[in-house]
């Protein structure tokens, strides 16, 4: 990956905002080419430290355009002198490279692939803003504890902007039809696997009942749930603990999932011959059959599909959420999540205001209250005519009580279902992003090694054992991570690593393949 620095200066150290009182801007910030500083240093500011000059900020994102447009309006209402221009990203790497070349780089952008931003030093060090922001103390604990946006350095380069946890769903109607019992909501991994097996029932007369329908492979979930924290404090995919990977954990989940597939416990995918053979219709989605008990789905499948008007009634479903279980019976465990990471561009001339925008559009409590105003009004629809809560609505990362009360009210609250949702929401406060969001070098590892060996296909077909690949894959993953850490955060990059870290990562790189 080539570096494409858009600004030479990174004034992380100089960007001292130690004077910040509350959320106000109190110090200088880095500006374009490192020479000029943010608006506050050259122009008037309000008592909150926000510029009073008329400025324009650009915000690039991956979300629903209508939602973001309305959210931007809410921000502009709060800051009438700041105009926000939004753009939906089509392809992060391509769009940002083109913008950099054209000198039209966005002030704030949220992305799906952090390697692109870090390799090119697109993101500004926003440590001082984050650490002096009281709102950040009211976020889900793993965000600060794990430094999601710090990339295993001691500096903040981004913040989560959009969060959806992994989710397991169960069709209660299928459980009833098969005379099975609903599991406890704080179930364990083994209890889930057993339910999948028990709910695979074939009476040889027609459509078989499958225990599992999946979008997310179970090995992706298992890597986070693989062991007690005391054994290994896993904070990322592939057994990543902040220092290195251990794919032996992943291999167990991979094998277990592969065995379920070869064992006939997993429903066919949409648009396949197997689906046509099973359901009679090539285009059927297993989630609509009423013949699948457990779903490893994206969280969005609930609001985008199952919660839409009349859907569950039409197909005879009764879908409730379950927490992605842990292998050990540990109540407060991490869960894997989609978490877009956003940051302020190094080219931004108004970084403090940009930080406020980043917060408002993503993680911040105030922004979430504005989002809820938008989502609660179902008369507002997007270009496809869909009410916005049914268009990939994220989950709040703030723990603010008002936000959560209003958010939960958008999900079933009747007596039969409310407890499932309450238990589920209570269980998702320790999100850990998929690797490509938060682990330096993860994407390169997947692209250049992991995806090439075709391990999923081999294990799923029963022709290879995942454990046989674990040791080599671990070495490869650690190498790619160390190489990326040196490249992104070493002297040739942000230069924020300690001597000790530099030596450690260099040692991993040097010993690779020896």
């Amino acid at each position, binding site marked *: 990956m080539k570096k494409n620095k858009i600004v030479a200066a990174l004034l992380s150290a100089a960007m001292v905002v130690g004077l910040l009182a509350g959320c106000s801007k109190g110090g200088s910030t880095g500006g374009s080419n490192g020479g000029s500083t943010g608006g506050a240093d050259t122009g008037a500011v309000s008592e909150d430290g926000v510029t009073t000059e008329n400025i324009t900020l650009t915000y690039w994102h991956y979300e629903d355009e209508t939602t973001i447009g309305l959210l931007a309006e809410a921000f502009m209402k709060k800051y009438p002198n700041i105009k926000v221009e939004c753009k*939906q990203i089509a392809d992060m790497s391509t769009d940002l490279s083109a913008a950099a070349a054209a000198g039209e780089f966005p002030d704030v952008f949220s992305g799906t692939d952090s390697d692109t931003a870090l390799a090119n030093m697109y993101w500004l060090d926003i440590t001082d803003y984050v650490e002096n922001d009281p709102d950040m103390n009211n976020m889900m604990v793993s965000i600060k504890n794990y430094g999601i946006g710090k990339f295993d350095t001691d500096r903040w380069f981004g913040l989560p902007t959009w969060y959806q946890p992994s989710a397991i769903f169960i069709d209660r109607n299928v459980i009833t039809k098969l005379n099975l019992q609903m599991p406890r909501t704080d179930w364990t991994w083994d209890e889930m696997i057993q339910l999948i097996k028990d709910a695979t029932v074939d009476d040889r007369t027609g459509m078989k009942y499958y225990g599992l329908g999946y979008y997310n492979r179970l090995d992706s979930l298992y890597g986070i749930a693989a062991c007690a924290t005391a054994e290994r404090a896993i904070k990322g995919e592939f057994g990543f603990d902040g220092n290195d990977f251990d794919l032996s954990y992943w291999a167990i989940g991979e094998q277990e999932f592969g065995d379920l597939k070869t064992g006939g416990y997993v429903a066919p995918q949409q648009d396949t011959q197997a689906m046509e*053979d099973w359901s009679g219709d090539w285009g059927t989605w297993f989630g609509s059959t009423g013949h699948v008990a457990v779903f490893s789905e994206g969280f969005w499948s609930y609001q985008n599909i199952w919660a839409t008007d009349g859907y569950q009634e039409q197909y005879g479903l009764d879908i409730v959420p379950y927490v992605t279980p842990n292998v050990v019976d540990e109540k407060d465990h991490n869960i894997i999540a989609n978490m877009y990471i956003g940051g302020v561009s190094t080219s931004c001339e108004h970084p403090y205001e940009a930080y406020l925008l980043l917060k408002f559009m993503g993680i911040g409590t105030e922004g979430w209250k504005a989002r809820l105003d938008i989502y609660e009004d179902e008369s507002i629809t997007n270009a496809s005519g869909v009410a916005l809560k049914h268009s990939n609505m994220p989950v709040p990362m703030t723990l603010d009580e008002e936000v959560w009360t209003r958010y939960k009210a958008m999900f079933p609250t009747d007596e039969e279902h409310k407890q499932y949702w309450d238990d589920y929401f209570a269980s998702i406060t320790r999100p850990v992003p998929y690797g490509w969001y938060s682990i330096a070098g993860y994407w390169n590892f997947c692209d250049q090694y992991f995806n090439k060996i075709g391990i999923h296909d081999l294990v799923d077909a029963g022709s290879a054992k995942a454990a046989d690949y674990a040791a080599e894959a671990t070495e490869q993953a650690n190498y790619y991570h160390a190489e990326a850490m040196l490249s992104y955060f070493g002297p040739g990059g942000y230069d924020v690593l300690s001597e000790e870290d530099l030596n450690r990562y260099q040692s991993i790189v040097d010993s690779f393949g020896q």
Partner: protein
Amino acid sequence: MKKKLLSILLCGAMAATMFAGCTKGGETPAEPAPEQTEVETPVEDTTETEPVATGEIPTDYKYYFSLDGGEDGVHMAAKDGAAIVETGKDPIYVTGVKGQGLYLDGTAGAKLDVNGVGDTYSVSYWMYSSRNAQHMPTLQYGPDVHGDATGSEHWVNFTWEPFNPEDTTKTTFPIVWSYDQAGGGDRMYWYPDWIDNRTGEWLNITMTVDPSEVSADGSMIIAHLYLNGEEVIGTSSDGDRPVQVVNGTMTPSDNFDFLLGVNYWDTPFKGVFDEVYVFDRVLTAAEAKALFEAGDTSAKFEAPEREIVIEKNPNAIETIGTDDLSMAFWSDWSSAIPLADGETKTIVLKNYSNGGATYNNYVLDFTNQPHEAHVDPNTVEGNVEYVVVRADEWAWIGDINPDSENAADYFEGTHSWGNWPVWQSNVMTDATVTLKITRNGNAISIVADNVDYNGESNVMNYTVKQTALTDADDLYVTVLGEGCYIEILEINDPITPDANAIDAIGNTDLNCGFWSDWTAAYGLADGETKTIKLNNYSIGKEIWQNFVMAFTNKETAAHAAPADQFPGEYMEYAVVRADGWGWGAPEGDSGAAADCYSVEKSYAGDTNFINTMKAADVEIVATRNGAEITLKMTYTGKKTGEVLTEGYVLKNSALAADSEVYFFFTCEASYVELLSVE
């Protein structure tokens, strides 16, 4: 000898209606897909779709296919790898909108003898689709659909896509795609105003193209599409209305394709076509309406009983039963096949069933005595029957075991398929079965991969533990059956490594991952020719599961990742797969880029290649001339005797005449023995 049989086809009668409209209400993309960019509000239609009077059915067509049967120029054709090949099978005709129509069963389509008629043209056809799949073709035509002649795709396709921004989670029909790769630009599409996949109904499609009617920027031709006699306006991918197509889609060509229900890439169509016309002029709206009104849309679609054609394989090792599928249980047997303790034996057979019951298929009988084919094992002296396993995941223990009534103690099985009636009536009536049978002590494990006429894999895993069977006992497996005819095609012992091999990569289980094992590198000096001989054993599921040859700048050692041996210095000039695909570096993946290499093959399609390469003698003659490396490959099937050849010319701008060049071999899902490099 061919014998035609009928089996019950449940696909139409099955749950199709149950799931009508049962498309997923929303996608679950890898990451939630951003909402579709808002499409510019279309300009108000200026085209009024007022009722059009019906005209006469035009008779000045250039091509017409009634598809009533017995016509010339209708060839059943299927996708085979990157090619469309004629299957040689007879077309099947069912009730159409006018007489008969051509039925396609979802495995193949038809290629009609049609060439381009010029830039001004009209096409018209009827169709009834019982399948709704994204990209699935109905009619696709063009002067070089696959780009085989010119290197550039050029076509029109009427298909299904989720392109209507009103709901991008649902496919709709008809979508009109067109593409002129050489002309630049994207694949252009057009979508109707509705969101409806229009399956399960007769549709008449007529499109007229007049090259003088061009889009505002002059790059596209405005076409007129009629659905059931009425013009539909819709919107193009650029937001323009009505439908537009690229130029030259009916230009005559030696490589012209006119394909019904099949193309080079996508899921084949399932349903009926009828009344296909091609004109070299623009039809009027009244004529389009006449073509519609000539069809009877009340014609009832009935999927035909699938015709099973038993083509007796002259290379079958043994056959069991008779081709009228009347074999009674325990009436015919294969010879006994020995299975030593710790051994895995692979048996490939063809299973034709009458589909009357799940047990009307092959059966495996495990005993302790050898016997000849067609001999009842029970008549062999000293015979002990340990266990019998049926194809339908059913088994019983022989009388030797006193606990035979307690089946649960001995049997454990799973199956991948989800619908037994379909398995019985569709899958096993014409299945190629690969049995991997393993004996470990008293446990007998069977992995039965039943591949049906769609190429769909249906896997049974079954393990039986027979406490009466000891390590010291002989064990044989006999194939028999009921209501079926069985041909044993292969009995494969484990691969025996060649003691004379210089080196070997992969493993004899044929499950190694790509780029996971490597031979040592050998130099190839400028002006030098080297002849390399290999044994190639492949798992034989995909075309790329064979040896792979890489050309680099370093003399790397065997069995260690080449790049790791020379960090920062290692460079690949080219990597070439056995199947004629490769990529160059450092330009990056160049796919089939002509400036990197060219390929000549003595074969088309994948099937023959895959079968040959399962066990093949390979000879490669590599010659280097400056920056150019020429490869001539010869593959000889060890069992089939088939000889296939390929040729390459590798060119890489990073490869200078004085560059050091080395080659090594790696592989995927295969076992490769290097026999000589001379």
